[in-house]
């Protein structure tokens, strides 16, 4: 056992844990930041987009020193057919200043973010695995690590150990996953010369572009993405684990097929794969958020299922939940009370924040990911949409009115009839509008 006692122990130096540790350290409390990776970021991955607002609340003008890749000025959505693509894009120079979001790489960013927490006074304990929570009857009083003399005590433990939260499970607030509550994302970082990237994506200097991909995910519910970094591209797909099970497809096979798509292959041509990574993403949304606090503990970030799958926001929610947990810990310290009664203020703060509101808005989205509907939405409809547009744009002497009918028929058939098309439409509308 370490002789030293801490006010707070934070488990996990991802965005949630680091935000908590930073907040607490700045208030002058004694906080330990424990991370299992060799350094923060070593084991963390995300798609690759970081937003300004939530981090700025924590560290004003952080982007002037943080290791970010490119400022995103253009966002594209591509609906992929087998060898065709329906594309929508929006570009606006105003996204440059003030910057709205950036592409980033977690290996660099998380290291930097944690270094800010360290500078603020958080004590780093890296390459260290927390094996269990130490309890006094039902109260959490510290953690046991895998090091010699590895017990460490504190008034509060903040759990930010990620999507597969082992500590959450040990508190029984986190059940084993159902395959339809979680998707598996795989991602490659592909290196290309800076100039090549700028030419291929029509960018200058530090301008960046994101492409979200739908369709052609081996007939599964899933989304893909292609993001521009400084001298690499991040290409990935996320598919529901339940679909992978049923279709008996391996995640890298989905990524490989996307890489072969004629629209994608020319963008990544000549690139060298530098990194391959995989990660679980909680998709259960609002309805799978666990109890957020108890006697001596709080839970935040992925560990608390805080991911907005629709808007590809996870880091945001993590940072905000970490900050709110940190602020609650400071208040508890001042009050000298670390029981559920005080720490539940964190729950209240989350409810008042965008985290809760956004997740609530999209609580219905999860139902779209069920088998059957998902195949229609993510595979058949994109394919038919492309075909319908092809027919509309092809000038071959067929009257436009007939063409329009043909296009509608294609979509209807893909949905499984008029009624189903209407039902999917309403369901989708409701899910998105909350």
């Amino acid at each position: 056992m370490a002789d030293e006692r801490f006010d707070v122990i934070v488990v996990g130096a991802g965005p949630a844990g680091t935000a908590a540790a930073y907040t607490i350290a700045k208030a002058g409390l004694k906080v330990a930041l424990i991370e299992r990776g060799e350094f923060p970021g070593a084991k963390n991955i995300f798609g690759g987009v970081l937003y300004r607002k939530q981090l700025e609340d924590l560290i004003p003008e952080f982007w002037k020193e943080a290791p970010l890749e490119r400022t995103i000025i253009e966002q594209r959505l591509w609906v992929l057919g087998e060898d065709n693509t329906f594309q929508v894009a929006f570009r606006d120079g105003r996204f440059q200043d003030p910057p709205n979001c950036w592409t980033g790489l977690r290996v660099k960013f998380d290291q930097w973010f944690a270094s800010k927490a360290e500078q603020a006074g958080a004590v780093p304990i890296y390459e260290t695995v927390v094996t269990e929570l130490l309890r006094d009857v039902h109260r959490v009083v510290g953690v046991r690590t895998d090091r010699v003399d590895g017990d460490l005590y504190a008034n509060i433990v903040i759990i930010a150990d990620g999507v597969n939260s082992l500590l959450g499970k040990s508190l029984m607030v986190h059940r084993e996953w159902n395959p339809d509550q979680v998707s598996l994302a795989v991602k490659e970082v592909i290196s290309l010369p800076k100039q090549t990237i700028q030419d291929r994506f029509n960018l200058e200097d530090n301008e960046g572009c994101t492409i979200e991909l739908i369709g052609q995910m081996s007939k599964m519910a899933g989304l893909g993405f292609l993001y521009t970094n400084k001298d690499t591209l991040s290409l990935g797909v996320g598919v529901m684990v339940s679909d992978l099970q049923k279709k008996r497809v391996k995640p890298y096979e989905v990524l490989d097929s996307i890489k072969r798509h004629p629209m994608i292959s020319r963008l990544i041509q000549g690139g060298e794969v530098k990194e391959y990574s995989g990660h679980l993403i909680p998709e259960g949304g609002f309805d799978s958020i666990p109890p957020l606090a108890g006697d001596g503990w709080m839970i935040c970030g992925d560990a608390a299922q805080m991911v907005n799958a629709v808007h590809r926001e996870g880091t945001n929610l993590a940072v905000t939940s970490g900050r709110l947990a940190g602020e609650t810990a400071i208040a508890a310290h001042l009050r000298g009370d670390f029981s559920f009664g005080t720490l539940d203020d964190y729950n209240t703060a989350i409810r008042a924040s965008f985290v809760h509101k956004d997740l609530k808005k999209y609580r219905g989205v999860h139902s779209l990911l069920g088998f059957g509907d998902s195949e229609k939405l993510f595979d058949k409809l994109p394919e038919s949409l492309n075909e319908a547009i092809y027919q509309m744009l092809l000038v071959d002497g067929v009257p436009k009115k007939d063409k329009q009918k043909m296009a509608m028929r294609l979509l209807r058939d893909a949905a499984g009839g008029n009624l189903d098309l209407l039902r999917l439409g309403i369901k989708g509308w409701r899910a998105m509008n909350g």
Partner: protein
Amino acid sequence: MLHIVVCIKQVPDSREIRIDPKTNTLIRQGVPAIVNYYDLHGLEEALRIKDEFGARVTVITMGPPSAEKALCQCVSMGADEGVLVSDRAFAGADTLATSYVLALTIQKAEDTWGPVDMIFCGKQTLDGDTGQVGPGIACRLDMDQLTYVELFESLDIEKQEVVVRRHLEDGVERVRARLPVLITALDILNRPRRASLPGVLRAARYKPIVWTTNDFSNLDRSKIGLKGSPTIVSKTWVPEPKQVNTEYVDSANVVAAATDLLNRLYATELPQKLGWS
């Protein structure tokens, strides 16, 4: 109490090193820095002596300010103090200049914390690969040197003696030597420990001692840095990878595969070379 000095170097992680095909030099940018692998084995042996007999373990290194991190890692494992010798004037040193500065540092450590009984170094560094700095320090301090040590057999404090086994090209050598000695460690000497939690906590707040050129009163400036380094790199090149033919033994069961493998081996000159009958 025994006083043991361990010399370490922060080096780029050789597992992640690549060579620039144009300049034939190491690409150091973006490569994580680690404590030279062999040095950790030297430190571990020092810490084992500390655990058994009680000792003061001082870790020293010469390098840029970022090398503080390497010293903190040593402190987390159990070293008592870390000294960073850092100054722009030391930059560009070859093994001759490096061993000069490290010898001076050890003398200063003696003045500060008492006479040194043992010095541990790694057998060589991962980036320079010369294996000259350890012996260089021993010569400058006029101390006996035991290089390529694979086993630390015993230490007799009363007799002021150590017995070690050296790993040589054509066998091993068991040597008895009187303290003080300098030992260079092989990686088979021991298995470096993982820091305890109290060790990690201490290291998290530890600030190494930094000595610059101003801290050495007897420093000869013509012997340090680039000026004190007669080594000239005349050419570097990347050796062509050797072509190796691989054959796969593919059989239905283990016995058939082994038989097949043996038959193929005996069809070559290898058994003769190895003296198999």
